[in-house]
């Protein structure tokens, strides 16, 4: 039973590792095409300016900055990966009839969604 849990969780982790690689590839592609030849790329970030994600994406679309959009896609995948793991682990515990740990995992997944919503709303 415990070995089943471990091997299934290992399978989830291996799949998620491909997610990290996919994200890394997108980030590399976006970074390589967009940011390489633009002088000091960090000059604009010496002081903080609040620009919500939605607005940043709209600006990138309007200026056809596909490298930037590709990078955002890579970042979105990275953020979603741990959430996916928690959700799949919850189902894993459910299948194993370990209701207590399944409930705990679902709680963690819900808390993550709540946190994301807080960021989107601020």
């Amino acid at each position, binding site marked *: 039973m415990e070995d089943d849990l*471990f091997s299934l969780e*290992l399978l989830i982790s291996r799949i998620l590792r491909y997610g990290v690689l996919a994200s890394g590839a997108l980030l590399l592609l976006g*970074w390589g095409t967009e940011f390489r030849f633009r002088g000091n790329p960090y000059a604009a*970030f010496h002081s903080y300016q609040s620009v919500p994600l939605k607005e940043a994406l709209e600006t990138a679309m309007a200026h056809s900055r596909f490298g930037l959009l590709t990078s955002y896609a890579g970042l979105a995948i990275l953020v979603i990966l741990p959430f996916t*793991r928690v959700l799949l682990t919850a189902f894993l515990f459910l299948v194993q009839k370990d209701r207590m740990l399944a409930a705990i995992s679902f709680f963690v997944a819900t808390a993550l969604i709540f946190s994301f919503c807080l960021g989107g709303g601020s």
Partner: protein
Amino acid sequence: MAISVGAGFLGALLGLGGGIIVVPVLTLFLHIDIRYAIAASLISIVATSSGAAASYLRDHITNLRVAVLLEVGTVTGAIVGFLISSHVQSSVLFLLFGLFLFFSAVMMFRKRGESLAEVNHPWSEKLGLASSFPNERGERISYQVERVPEGLALMFGAGLLSALLGIGSGILKVLAMDGVMKLPMKVSSATSNFMIGVTATASAGAYFLRGDVRPEIAAPVAIGIIIGSWFGARAMMKMPAALIRKVFVVVLAVVSVQMILKGL
């Protein structure tokens, strides 16, 4: 990006997220605003943990049940950390955290050998948290889990600091598991690394949607961390527990001085 490779290697080796290296480098050397640095660091921490998790599970060191339970503490802590992030003076937190790390380094330096749990906490009994792990000779060492509620409370603090400072809080996580719950050092390290991604994504996701994660900064850092952590996770099993502890104490001391100086 080269610094990120180093941070990722060290992070995976010690059960840290690498954020304690990434944030100071981005702010002190590249003069990037700390809010962008924190957000980029959290993203890189998610990459470290997600990339290395399979390696730790394969070695059967990670305690999955302990990880899932303690994530309740870290994720709720991270939410609170995100909510108060714009209201708290970070210099105060840097100072407190630095002093706390210094104290931890002294305590860990004085500690000789591992002290494992002698009794199993009722929650551990109910959730089946006690387990076993393989040592260097491949023998399975059984262990129990003590003081679960206290560990959970410390995890809340770890999550809060993670969101506020852009660190993985691996140091606090390992201290909670190793020092409070009396788990073996290797189990603490691996389980901490396994959990760090979930902790970090709670606030990283929030910062991402708020627009603080800028690809111009986060992309090179994350790529470097992915590469570094890949090598770090592979080196961990080949290193004895005593050496891991020594390296860990040095990292604690260096980071504590850095934090205190930042807070003053």
